[in-house]
């Protein structure tokens, strides 16, 4: 982990140094604006973004908490919706044939294109405390449910046919086959989807903030700092670092959950 961070920092500075010294202009001109030094970026955390305001890091942490709330709500809702969809689909060929194409088609619509619509449609319906961020969570849900639904469906279908026979010999109901066999054997599939979805939900939350004009999250901060990039590039980069950390934190939480929940032979780990 630390080695990876050091390697990225090292490569960044090495690239900066070689390109700047050699004066290469392809693919882009390297200077302190296009690639601010790592120490400049980290120094920016401690300084206020605007005069008479708290330090950048404390502003960013507040915004991160806000975006994390959107992403977590979207991730949770998406995971539940995806899981329930998969359970319904595995039990009905008819539903599978009728529904699956639409589920797949839903993901071909670019998220940026429908984000404003979601805000227009969903936001007025939301109760007061959910106003604004709730609509963004819906966008994160939209990115999350799909991998969960598709992977879980595959996982539920991947139950060992002999184990299904075994459950039949106990006269098991569909319900007990689902919970005692299908769901446990789908967990590795479910978790590989959740790992994908964890980062996707953060992406969805940040992107969702752009067309909503919300200023409280990381998406708003990225939009803002982008406009001042030519003067203070380190502030946008600092925000990017924080956004990356948020995505990584989500990912690690899922990995941690998987480690505690999934007990199985080492060679079976997906």
């Amino acid at each position, binding site marked *: 982990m630390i080695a990876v961070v050091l390697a990225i920092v090292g490569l960044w500075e090495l690239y900066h140094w070689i390109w700047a010294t050699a004066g290469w202009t392809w693919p882009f001109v390297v200077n302190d604006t296009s690639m601010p030094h790592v120490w400049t970026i980290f120094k920016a955390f401690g300084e206020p973004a605007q005069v008479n305001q708290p330090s950048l890091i404390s502003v960013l942490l507040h915004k991160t908490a806000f975006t994390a709330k959107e992403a977590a709500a979207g991730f949770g809702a998406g995971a539940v919706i995806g899981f329930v969809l998969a359970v319904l689909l595995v039990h009905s060929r008819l539903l599978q044939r009728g529904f699956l194409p639409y589920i797949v088609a839903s993901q071909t619509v670019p998220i940026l294109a429908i984000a404003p619509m979601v805000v227009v449609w969903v936001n007025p319906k939301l109760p007061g405390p959910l106003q604004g961020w709730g609509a963004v969570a819906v966008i994160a849900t939209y990115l999350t449910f799909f991998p969960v639904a598709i992977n879980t469906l595959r996982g539920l279908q991947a139950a060992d046919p002999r184990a299904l026979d075994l459950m039949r*010999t106990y006269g098991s109901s569909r319900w007990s086959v689902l919970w005692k066999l299908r769901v446990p054997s789908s967990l590795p599939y479910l978790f590989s989807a959740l790992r994908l979805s964890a980062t996707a939900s953060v992406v969805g939350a940040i992107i969702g903030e752009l067309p909503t004009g919300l200023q409280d999250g990381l998406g708003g901060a990225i939009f803002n700092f982008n406009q001042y990039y030519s003067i203070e590039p380190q502030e946008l980069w600092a925000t990017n670092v924080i956004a990356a950390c948020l995505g990584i934190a989500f990912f690690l939480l899922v990995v941690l959950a998987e480690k505690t929940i999934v007990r199985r032979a080492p060679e079976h780990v997906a």
Partner: protein
Amino acid sequence: MSSASPAVVRLERVTKTFPRGNVTALQDIDLELRPREFVSLIGPSGCGKSTLLRVIGDLVEPTAGVITVNGKSARQAREDGDYGIVFQEAVLFDWRTVAKNIALPLEMLGWDRDRRRARVREMLDLVELGSFGDHHPWQLSGGMQQRVAIARALAFEPALLLMDEPFGALDEMTRERLNLELLAIWEQTGSAVVFVTHSISEAVFLSTRVVVMSPRPGRIAGIVDIDLPAARTAETRDSPRFFELVTKVRELLRSRGEHLLPEEAAALE
């Protein structure tokens, strides 16, 4: 158990045709299994012995004929959990411990926790895995896994145990040891057993009767009563009567003029 029929399993003119390729897997099979009987089904690949087992267990529906298990229809018997089954692979659930695997059918039957725990303990001792209850299946050898599968199949004391080449994937040494263990377990539980195997010596050693089947269409070529002494030991395999019976089964297999597959040829050695 129904008083109208003392038979654990009764098959009357059972026929199974698979529509794909129009294969007749079973034709007019009549067979009756009494309580505490140990019946082996033997025959070359494609003779329908596994299909016959699956038909008894209502995992495959017959095309024609009547199957009675414990005095009920095969469907009813399956839904009531009247039989235990062991496949060639142990088919254990990786996410459950050995103890929880054995408890699975008991959970399905709605036993409470204390009763389950007590029975699992008994079963672990029965298959001599007393200290492995908290292990996970992948930590056990193939032979141990198969013993767990047997414990799981017998945990709820079914009147009938169906075994589909349960030791087929194990090495010869393990297989012979498990043969002896199976007999000891059978002695204690008193279930009737239907045992599918490729091995003539295994069939003769274990059974009270050996049903020899022939392929295309699958039917019963003959039945050999095994009149070896009830208490079988490792020495039983060296007795002259054992060899006579093995020869008898082998000749029944040969008399059908069927080509034997390599594993069956090996079993004749």
